[in-house]
């Protein structure tokens, strides 16, 4: 993704589509009006670190570098019900508060092992489970549908030009 566009879409939020001509609903990123984002810059940073903990940088880029947190915020802001949005915002707060309480520092300042362990406590927590599953699912979706992954790792073909209906399964 172009960095300029990535930064621009960070700033987009609920109701961003309202400024378009009627026939252009929902597609032209560059003409979308910028409105108040769902998350504060600090929360956005926290979300980036959570996504990175779920899909970290290895020998290939992780979620943060691929801007998956931007995608997550956009999806929650535009495609989710208010109730889910509340779960999302509250979950971020809870996670940060838990980090401060148990580690005495913010989630972003914690090391990889601490982050993993914090997220794992969410996974089993009755109240935070919904938040964890939402963020994890969106992280996976954003990662697998990112330009980097689709073009470099999973072999997406926009226009294959053929269909073969019966080929041997490749042994992996």
């Amino acid at each position, binding site marked *: *993704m172009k960095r300029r566009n990535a930064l621009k*879409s960070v700033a*987009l939020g*609920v*109701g961003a*589509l*309202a400024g378009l001509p*009627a*026939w*252009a*609903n*929902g*597609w*032209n*990123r560059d003409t979308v009006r910028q409105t108040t984002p769902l998350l504060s810059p600090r929360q956005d940073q926290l979300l980036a670190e959570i996504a990175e*903990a*779920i*899909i*970290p940088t*290895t020998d290939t880029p*992780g979620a943060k570098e691929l801007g998956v947190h931007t*995608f997550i915020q*956009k*999806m929650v802001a*535009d*495609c*989710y*019900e208010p109730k889910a949005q509340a779960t999302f915002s509250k979950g971020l707060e809870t996670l940060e508060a838990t980090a401060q309480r148990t580690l005495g520092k913010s989630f972003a300042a914690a090391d990889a092992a601490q982050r*993993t362990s914090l*997220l*794992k406590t969410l996974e089993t927590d009755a109240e935070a489970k919904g938040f964890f599953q939402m963020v*994890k699912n969106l992280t*996976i*979706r*954003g*990662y*697998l*549908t*990112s*330009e980097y*992954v*689709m073009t470099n*790792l*999973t072999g*997406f*073909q*926009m*226009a*294959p*030009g*053929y*269909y*073969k*209906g*019966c*080929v*041997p*399964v490749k042994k*992996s």
Partner: protein
Amino acid sequence: MGDAKKQMTYDAIVIGSGISGGWAAKELCEKGLKTLVLERGRDVRHVTDYPTGMMNPWEFEHRNQLPLEIKQQNPIISKCYAFYEGTTHFFVKDAEHPYVQEKPFDWIRGYQVGGKSLMWARQTQRWSEYDFQGPARDGFAVDWPIRYADIAPWYSYVEKFAGISGNKDGLPQLPDGEFLPPHEWNCVEKHFSQQMAKHYKGGRPVIMGRAAHITQPKPIHLQQGRAQCQRREICERGCPYGGYFSSNSSTIPWAMKTGKMTLRPHSVVHSIIYDEQKGRATGVRVIDAETKQMTEFYARIIFVNAAALNTNLILLNSTSNRFPNGLGNDNGLLGKYVAFHNYRARVWAEYDGMLDSTTEGKRPNSPYIPRFRNVFKQETDFLRGYAAGFGAGRGSHTKQDGIGADLKASLLKPILGGWYVGSHMMGETIPKETNFVALDPNQKDPFGIPQLRVSVDYDDNDEKMVKDYLAQMTEMFTVAGFKNIQSSDSKQAPGLDIHEMGGVRMGKDPKTSLLNKWNQLHACKNVFVTDGACMTSTSTQNPSLTYMALTARAVDYAVKEMKKNLI
């Protein structure tokens, strides 16, 4: 005639630029007629006005999911399978063009040059003799005034130009056409087809769908500037290659090249002008969608191709002393006998064989099961029958346990799943006087035109047919060895099939029909209706190909009659 009126005068006017209007425009212009094409929506030029046509999945900020706001504001159009982030600009939003649902009806519309031909499903099966004989044999509606032999050469004519892929299957119930090479089968689909052939001894053929895709271009397609289908499977966003047929890629630019066509977008037709002295239609009243100004245009012949229900609306709204109930409506049947296709039911299953094989690439088409019920004779307790779509494929999934580097690694190792198979029904519904559209006496649209009141519903015959489809397809899947067979009846409202037809039906007798065998209004000979409104019955085939053929045939007739000074 004064100069001012002369400027507004054409040889022919075509109302609508969708799949049938585009054909009318092409045929009229090629025959040398100065033709005005009126389109109520904006212009959509081939290639340049397909804003999402070249976008990759990651370029959609919601990855093609509809934002909640759009869904909430558009409960009707959001039900349409082809309406997603990448196509929202090609569909009418609920609030923009209101209508009255006397009974639930999901009216799916595309108001732009090209109409719904941009987003259609591109299935192009011919009707057979058994379809045209249907109403007469089974005693419903009225007899079609034409038979297969009347339309067969016109099917060939439009198929060659449009580019239809298919296999010559030699089936009397689904005649072969002028085909480009057919799409490819996959192993499980082939298996199903073979098992059905064996078990039902040829009684239930499963064939490759005939589809309006250029699988191998011929010179006529290259002349249109169209290229071979690239197998992208994102057709409904508009195809910059012209790989599938649309008015925008094919008939409209072809008509434009003749120099005879004037294309006028943003032109909402209010009504057709009837001249009492001359005893003929003389033109149309048009409201400019941008300025709301009313203008009149004049022509010797008028083709009404506004899409089935809007064609009804325009004729109903075209009142005069001679026709107080709508143009050509002497018998009071205008707007009545509307029918559609029953798309409610699905059956799906899994197959645990052929696990050493899979598919590669993409195919914008799938196999097709022509109607096998009541085709050659009546054999069930319901009338008519259903065709069905069929398809098989293999999906993959990933393990998504935990978080961190292990999760990441497993996400990049997709696990190939087993084969899944699926089918959906396309049932014929019986046109009835009680299924109708009418002008609402009170409600007006934003242009001051009466809103359409839609009163269309399923009946007992449809319910029986759904049950039969579910039972038969379950049996067929069982015979083929498919497992975990499941089914559903969505109970979706009429309309979502996007195959609404009738209201201005063809027939032999002016007392019981509106149009004659040339799609010409019995009572107003210089007005022709060749879109879905003309359909006497619906049969089960996707109807667009039949509209194209009827249109080319009607234009040929109309121009001959004009030259003889008969209209």
